[in-house]
């Protein structure tokens, strides 16, 4: 089996600085492997994630986008993840409405202590995306058939 033939999804993970990014660091220092397809962008808080960023990722060919933040109630800025939760709920529902499979978008709350959860989440997510295959839809939204 050659690695080159395998579908390598592009996956963008937005991680809040205080919990999830630290959770990813812990996954790293605990050597808890997850696929290299996941690339992390550090944001101060999940509430910094503008739906535009996610649309941009899909438009540029991302196959999946995941946003990670502090657990509800644990936000470093106290309320940021509550706003993020509503925004992402609505955005992902809209993407689903446009025909972007639900499994291509995900929100997971990962604390600084949850290296294991971070790694597991990423493994699961990549697996889901690999099953779905390449995402071409949003790039292609305004082209004639």
């Amino acid at each position, binding site marked *: 089996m050659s690695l080159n033939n395998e579908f390598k999804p592009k996956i963008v993970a937005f991680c809040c600085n205080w919990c999830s990014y630290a959770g990813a660091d812990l996954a790293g220092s605990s050597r808890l492997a997850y696929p290299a397809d996941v690339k992390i962008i550090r944001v101060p808080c999940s509430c910094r994630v503008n739906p535009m960023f996610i649309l941009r990722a899909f438009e540029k060919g991302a196959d999946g986008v995941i946003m990670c933040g502090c657990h509800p109630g644990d936000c470093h800025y106290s309320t940021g993840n509550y*706003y993020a939760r509503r925004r992402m*709920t*609505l955005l992902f529902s809209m993407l689903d409405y446009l025909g972007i499979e*639900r499994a291509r978008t995900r929100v997971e709350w990962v604390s600084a202590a949850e290296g294991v959860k971070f790694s597991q989440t990423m493994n699961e997510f990549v697996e889901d995306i690999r099953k779905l295959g390449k995402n071409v839809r949003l790039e292609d939204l305004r082209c004639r058939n």
Partner: protein
Amino acid sequence: MQELVNRAKALLADGTVARVLGWKAGEFAYDPEPAFFETEEDLKDFVYDGFCGANLSKYMIEASKLEGKTLVFLKPCDSYSFNQLTKEHRVDREKAYIIGVGCKGKVDVKHIKEAGIKGIESIVGADYPNPAETLEIKTLYGDKTISYKDAMLERCHVCKGKDHVVFDEQIGESADTVDAERFAEVEKIEAMSPEEKFAFFRAELSKCIRCNACRNVCPACSCRKCVFDSTKFDSAQKANTTSFEEKMFHIIRAFHVAGRCTDCGECSRVCPQGIPLHLFNRKFIKDINTFYGDYQAGEDIEAQAPLTDFTFEDREPGQFAERG
């Protein structure tokens, strides 16, 4: 209609208002347009009938900057937009004298043309306050008819009701014209497979010519400078048809007005390509109502908008994700 003109004249004459914002007769029977009237003389062109669908609220943003009050005519559904703009500090309630004008459903020539009626010379039956059940249309190809209901705007089939949420005085009666389920179209799309959904929206959005009519008419798109014209996002790249903004325009716009859109339906009304743009906004409205409780933008100035609010128990975005 004469009552509206008389009242406007009186308010101009006694100095209560400096100008009148209303509808002016167009070139044809079916295309009245929004207009400011500053004198009694100007008001001879004033018109109010079934074709006056245009929502005048957004014009009050500029009118709020002018000296003196502006008399504005708002239909029940337009009053929601005005309220929403007040809430966002975009219009000045003190600068407006609002006459809540009655409405019995608005018709649009687009629907008449869709019914195959071409070469229209005149239309009879769209009068207010007593519209006919059937519009009688003289065309180059003979007399035609269409029922008032069939010519009605989509938004009137899901009418918000007869009540104005803001006004200084009210003139004329209204009729509740609801005869369709508000979220039926959205639900139909939701039931499709991902492939069907995408095919549907791609077909619709591919018609878009990016004329910006939807944005320019939208009372929620009231930004001084739109993100699509701003260098602060990489979204202002007008010339580039493969760019981000070209593809994502309608989705970003829908998200920007989510929780602020009153569902006035102006976007769909003005789209020259006939794209059912309200389907984006209404999807958000449906989700907001389902997830966070019923919310009607513009209804209550004090209400916290759903996207600037939260509860500890809000549903998780992943709650409806099916894994595997």
